[in-house]
């Protein structure tokens, strides 16, 4: 079955608002990485986490350090350029394979 479940599948925000994306894992994961795919199809790495939280500008990501079964990506003060599809991807212990979720399509409007 699917090991990485993202929610929501689509999200519409007005400029200036805040929101959060979530990834649930059906099993314990060693690390998680978040990507944004832009309109040209390029995958841009946003965060890599093995535990805890990381912040970069208006984006902040957290990885549940206890049970390692979920991760979140918070977007603060959304801007038009944040639009795109956001993917999380996770690794199980002892594996080099990165397992992707289905993505969240984010649309930010003025």
């Amino acid at each position: 079955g699917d090991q990485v479940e993202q929610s929501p599948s689509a999200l519409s925000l007005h400029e200036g608002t805040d929101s959060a994306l979530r990834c649930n894992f059906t099993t314990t994961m060693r690390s998680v990485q978040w990507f944004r795919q832009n309109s040209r199809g390029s995958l841009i790495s946003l965060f890599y986490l093995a535990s805890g939280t990381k912040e970069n500008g208006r984006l902040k990501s957290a990885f549940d350090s206890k049970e390692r079964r979920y991760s979140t990506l918070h977007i603060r003060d959304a801007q038009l350029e944040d639009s795109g599809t956001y993917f999380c991807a996770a690794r199980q212990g002892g594996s080099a394979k990165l397992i992707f979720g289905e993505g969240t399509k984010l649309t930010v409007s003025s």
Partner: protein
Amino acid sequence: EAAVTQSPRNKVAVTGGKVTLSCNQTNNHNNMYWYRQDTGHGLRLIHYSYGAGSTEKGDIPDGYKASRPSQENFSLILELATPSQTSVYFCASGETISNERLFFGHGTKLSVL
């Protein structure tokens, strides 16, 4: 920032033909990967490699071969292309096991007619 270069960027192939997608990375990463992405879906792993001479099956390896002749290069080979292999293919490279961040190429759009 790590550089991963894929070629070609676009490819049209005929059913039954052979297709080779190439990937080059210049950051001395051990691990390299091939994924495909279909409309409305996430990325699915086809093959990956731990280093020169190594290839491993991913989650959807059927119909694909891989070749890692050197640390820098990782190829994906479709010996007998089929229309179901029409997709966008992404190559990625990764750092050591202690820091597993992946860097992706820009993708190759393959159409099999």
